[in-house]
């Protein structure tokens, strides 16, 4: 029981992660893929933050007095600040990726007039087919 309770958090996170991953690889809409990627990444952030949590702990910010001097209270338990730092970085990386992805989507839409993966693949396949017709057998056979 204790094991289950102690790991329930992680399992929830895993379910979320896999939902995100599922959206990324199963959906054909480019924007939705990016949303999925976000869900996936945010769930990973949860994994990290869960690692840092200490039962009965508090946020790793020391109390200060009015002059800004740090008060040290040995009874307070702090959660692990390191994962927080890592995740701050990771969030930034995430938004950077998202914005790039979205910028690409805007351009793709302009060039292909669609943001559905299948349509893009079809158009690319058509282009490739045309290219192969033009260039394919010009070399006297396949090999």
């Amino acid at each position, binding site marked *: 029981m204790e094991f289950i309770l102690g790991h329930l958090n992680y399992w929830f996170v895993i379910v979320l992660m896999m939902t995100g991953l599922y959206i990324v690889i199963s959906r054909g809409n480019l924007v939705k893929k990016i949303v999925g990627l976000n869900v996936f990444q945010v769930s990973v952030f949860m994994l990290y933050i869960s690692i840092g949590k200490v039962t009965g702990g508090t*946020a790793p*910010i020391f109390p200060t007095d009015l002059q*800004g001097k740090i008060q040290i209270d040995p009874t307070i338990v702090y959660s692990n600040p390191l994962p927080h730092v890592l995740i701050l970085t990771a969030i930034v990386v995430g938004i950077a990726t998202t*914005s790039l992805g979205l*910028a690409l989507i*805007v351009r793709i839409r302009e060039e292909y007039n669609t943001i559905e993966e299948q349509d893009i693949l079809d158009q690319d396949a058509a282009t490739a087919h045309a290219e192969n017709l033009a260039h394919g057998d010009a070399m006297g056979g396949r090999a």
Partner: protein
Amino acid sequence: MRHHLILRVITKLLVGAIILFAFYVQFHGDFSPGGGFQAGVIMAVAFILYGLVFGVAQVQRVFPPWLVHKLLALGVLIYAGTGVWNMLLGYEFLHYGSFAPHHMSHGQHSGILYVEVGVGITVTGVMVAIFYAFAGRRPQLGDDDW
């Protein structure tokens, strides 16, 4: 959205407050949650809001794109420059202790301050730049399509 009078008035009031809040988050990050990154985002939000309500052209008059470009590079250079300065002082890269060799934490304080400013500037610049880039494209949908 030129016709939304209330929006325009409130926006004008809000922008100042948001910028103020951004500065608070920037320089109070040592004591409470927040820091350069969050401050940068908030600062950018101020400009984005202004741009959304008054149009990109308006905000670009206040905050011209060329300045945005310079700023986003400048922030990174401030951060890395802090480290280079430490190196010039004969210490490791980003060893803020070098700013006050005899009082460790003072040096650390100034170091953190500088780099957080760098982060803030870059993040503001980048967010605004991204907004400009997206806003520079003509939307496919009108207001009422939602």
